[in-house]
């Protein structure tokens, strides 16, 4: 069972990401949710994840901060992190990719794009 964590301060945005994952038709996926980066890290202490989707702009600990914390942790740095945001430009995307984000997706999510990211990310997580 693939463990996926969705991090966004908007419960509606989390619902929409879950819905998009359902539409992608990937089976064997258990989804957990967190409203910010800090709570995401707390959840990750106790549960192994195969993939994290995170928004950028969130209170307490934002998506960029969460990405950096995950990638600097020897226990977590193997987990692919996908950024989903409505506020990215090319420079931000390049910076996030340089910080080892798996992918940067713009809202609204496109199903083919999400499918491709899921295939690549979940394969990577299994290596």
């Amino acid at each position: 069972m693939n463990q996926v964590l969705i991090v966004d301060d908007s419960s509606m945005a989390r619902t929409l990401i879950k819905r998009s994952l359902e539409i992608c038709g990937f089976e064997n996926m258990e989804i957990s949710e967190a409203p910010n980066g800090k709570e995401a890290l707390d959840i990750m202490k106790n549960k192994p994840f195969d993939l994290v989707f995170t928004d950028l702009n969130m209170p307490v600990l934002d998506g960029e901060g969460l990405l950096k914390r995950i990638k600097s942790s020897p226990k977590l740095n193997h987990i692919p992190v996908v950024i989903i945001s409505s506020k990215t430009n090319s420079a931000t995307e390049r910076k996030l990719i340089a910080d080892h984000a798996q992918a940067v997706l713009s809202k609204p999510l496109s199903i083919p794009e999400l499918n491709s990211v899921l295939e690549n990310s979940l394969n990577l997580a299994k290596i």
Partner: protein
Amino acid sequence: MNYELDQISEELTEAISESFENLFFADIEQCVSVNEIETEEEALIVSVDTIAPFKGKVGLIIDKEMSEEIVMEMVGGDFDLIDKEMIADALSEIGNTIVGRFLSKIVPEDEEFSLGFPECIKWNPDDYNYKSSENCKLFDLELEDKHVFCVLNKD
């Protein structure tokens, strides 16, 4: 760069069209400029301020029945579970997505853009009195025999 509304309106309607299609699988069949917003239905307005590269506002006016249908399509599930808060959250997410996409289309590749928080409230024409002008563009978007109105306003 000078962001004249006439020159960026197409990017806004494109952003709306792409967002509607991806968020709730609705195709906009027609988009026309109008001089006033004429709706007699009970409606909601979701508005998002644009902060950079220009100060202004984008608003979407959607009637109540259509709002409920949109939320059903977006989140799936039972009609009985849809409440006012869920509708406001969903329309806010739509507003946020559209304006983020719109601004990302009009700014040069490496330039920053900024938008405010979405606000979703009951539409009352007397509170807004939008009329088409050099600094205010109004659009009537038709989808499946229903209409969504859009306001693009520059301060």
